[in-house]
Structure formats: structure tokens, C-alpha cells
């Protein structure tokens, strides 16, 4: 992982993961609020 700066790894791996996790959290929150 030392082949690129930390920002690159965050940009390539953490950012897309954040979109997916965020979408799932909002979905679960919506379900809970509904019930």
C-alpha cells in the first residue's frame, strides 16, 4: 500500500464504500422510522 499516498487509497477504496454504507444506513433508518 506504500505505492501511493494515503489520499489515493481513500479516494479509490473508502469513498465508494462510503456511498454504499451510507445508502444502506439511510435505508435501515427509514425502515425503523416506518415501524
Amino acid at each position, binding site marked *: 500500500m506504500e505505492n*501511493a*499516498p494515503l489520499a489515493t487509497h481513500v*479516494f*479509490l477504496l473508502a469513498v465508494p464504500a462510503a*456511498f*454504499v454504507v451510507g445508502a444502506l444506513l439511510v435505508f435501515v433508518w427509514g*425502515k425503523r422510522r416506518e415501524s
Partner: protein
Amino acid sequence: MIASVVAAYMAALLVIGALAARLTRSPEDFFLAGRSIGSWVTAISSTASSESGWVVLGAVGMTYAGGVSALWYAPGCLAGYVVNLYLVAPRLRREAAARGSLTLPDFLCDRLGDPGHILRLASVLVIFVSLGGYVAAQLTATGKAMEAILGLPYGTGVVAGGVVILVYTLLGGFRAVSWTDFVQGLIMVFALVLMPLLVLREAGGYSAVLAALSETDPNLTLVTGGKTGFALFGLVTGLFGIGLGYPGQPHVLTRYMAASGEEKIRQTQVIALVWGVLVFYGAGFLGLAGRVVLPGLKDPEQLFPLLSRQMLHPLLAGVMLAAILSAIMSTVSSQLLVAASAVSRDLFEKVFGVATTGRASLLAGRAAVVVLGAAAMAVAVGEVRVVFWFVLFAWSGLGAAFGPVILLSLWTRSVTRWGAVAGIATGFLVTVLWKVAGLSDRIVYELVPAFLLAGLATLAASALDRRTGKLA
């Protein structure tokens, strides 16, 4: 073998069109599938129709050439998805269903009132100018893809692809377009997950790809691309700014209007975002790893078809190439239907007051699809260059014209009919003028200033309208 896969794919599209035709009996069926679309089809058809051949060819080529920093388009487009899915889709579906709106101009006019048809005419003009050229350009891309994939003469490829699209859109209307887009979206995501994984493995894995890129040029592995100051600002705003276009694309927004319920929209949000992450980052990783596996390409946009042919069994290569056609065709059919609805529903039915009965409206919708589709094919076969000039600002023109107006109309009570007209006109005109003046290359991507100015114009003209009673 490759030709057989592509032929089977085309035949499947026609079968879907025929099945959808059996359920298409009213204008609401033809233009909005009777508001009965489920979450999977809403999610994947909306995203597939918004991503043209650009994502499988252009985005791959861009990251191949520019490295990690070119991937700024991915969070930008996903931010656009978030705005559409969370801020636009739920309210738009609810309000369009409550008011019985079938098209985007319908929704704006039903919500803001439009006794003189000015708002409807302005909307139709922008949609028609932007999407008409866009459809012809996408058919050109279909012909070129057929030429590259199957070796068909260019004109034959345009007509073969165009006729298939025309037939299924004509038969099954919105339902056929949504179902085929769904299948096409699944093929796209399959291709853009499998291919990058195979190429990454070939290149030695994630770390090895970054190491090899860094060895070629350290800037290829930096999120800034080695740029600083205004150049960096231009790069990031330009690529990130692509996402501003999403809330203004009529062929995407109508998918939300057709969803069968509120609950379906919530599921749609998750499915669409996961699809987007896989497709955008899949295309990006394919470009990055492809540069290591196949360096020195003159035309990086050919990376995907070239690697498919080199690395895969002909059956799988056929599927990959069907993914390229899918990306293009899903966009064409959606845009063709929206352009046709602008003519038949908005212009003839609402403005001129003809073809107002259910049967006549359905017939007018189908006739508009045939006429526009045939005209677009003729333009594509003849390669009428002037039409392709409109395509240069179709995405940004629609995004800036409708995006701010839709968002402000859904989230505030401040927008009036004249405010919306001012916003649509400002968004479209600023896009064209900014582009023509060459400011997109020198300062920033035209959508960014056009979107902001259109928002300001909408609010300012609405405030003036309310204060003075009527602007006219």
C-alpha cells in the same frame, strides 16, 4: 460466435418489446407504464439510461490516459445520483401521481400553472433541441460499435440498431424501454465488474497496478494528478460538476414518476447507488489496470473492446461487446421516448388540443416515435454534422435548464411559472454561450456556472413575479 451473441441480444430486446406491447393500452401505459414499475427496474433502468456509451468507452479511456485524478467523475456522478434519488425521486413521484402528470413539462405546468403554454413551450423546445441531436449521435455510436464489433458497414449498423430500438419502443412504449434498460443495465454492471477484476488480476493486483503507474509517472497515482492552484480547481470542478446534470435529465426523471410506490423508491435508492458505485469505479479500475496490461494505446477509448477480444472466450467477449451496445441503446430508447412524448403529449395534445382522447393520444405517441426515430436514423446515416453540434451541450443544457427549476419547485414554494421560464432559458442559454465562447476549456465546465445562474434566475424572476403580480 460474437455475432451470434449480439444477434441473440437484439432478439431478446425485440421479445421484451413484444411482451410489453401486450400491456400497453392507454397513454399512461405508453408514456409511464401505468406507474407500475418496481424498485429493481426503476433503479437499474434509470441509471442505465443516464449512462451512455460514455461510461464503457469514454470513462475507461479517461482514467487510462489521466490516471487516478481522472476518477473525480465517479464521486461527482454518485453525488448526482444522491441528489436525484433522495431529493428529487420521492417528491417527484408523489406529486406527479397526485396531479396525473405524464411528462416532465406536464409536472412543471401542473404544479406552477401555465395558462398561456409558455412554460410548456420553453420546456419542449429545450428537450427537443437537446435530445433530438443526442438520439442521432447515439445512433451514430451504435453504427460505429456495430462496425467495430461485427464488421458491418456503418450505415447497416445504424439501421440495424435503430430499427431494433424503434420497434421495441414503438410496441411497448415506456414499459418496453424500462424493461430493456433493466436488462441492459444488468449486462453493463456484469461487464464492468468482471472485466476490471480480470484485468487487475492480470496486472498483479491493486498494489501492483499503483506501483506500475507510479513508475511510469508518479502523477498518475495522485488524486490531484500533480496539478495545483487553478488547474486543480478546473480539473476537480469539471469532473465533479458532471454530477450537476442528473436532476435535469427528463429521461431519467420520468423513471421516478413511473415507480409504483413510496416504498419502491426507498429500495430504488440503495440498488441504484450500488449499481453506480460498481459501474463508475469498475470503469475507473479498468482504465487504470488496462494501462499496465496494454500500455501505449493510441485511442484509449478502445481499451474495453480490445481487452475483451484479447482476454476472453468469444462467448464472454460477445457479452462484453453487448454491454457496449447496451450502454448506448438504453440511452437512445429512453431519449427517443421522451422526445416523442414532448411532441405528441406536450405539443399536440396540450398546446394544440389535438389527439386528446386516449386512443388518439396513444396513436400520436407511437407516430412521434416512428417519425423522430426515422429522422434520427437518416441524420446518423448521412452524418449531418450540424446536428452533432447540439450534442456538445445536451447533457449540460438539460441539466442547467431543468435541474435548478425541478429542485426549487419540489423543495420551496417560492417558484412561479415565470421564474421557471427564466430558469430554463438562463440555464440553456448560459450553457450554449459559455461553450461557444470557449470558456469551458479556459475556465470551468459550462454546467457549473449555468446551473448556478439558472438557480439565481429562477429565484429572482419568481420574486419579481410575486411582487409585481404578473411579469408579462
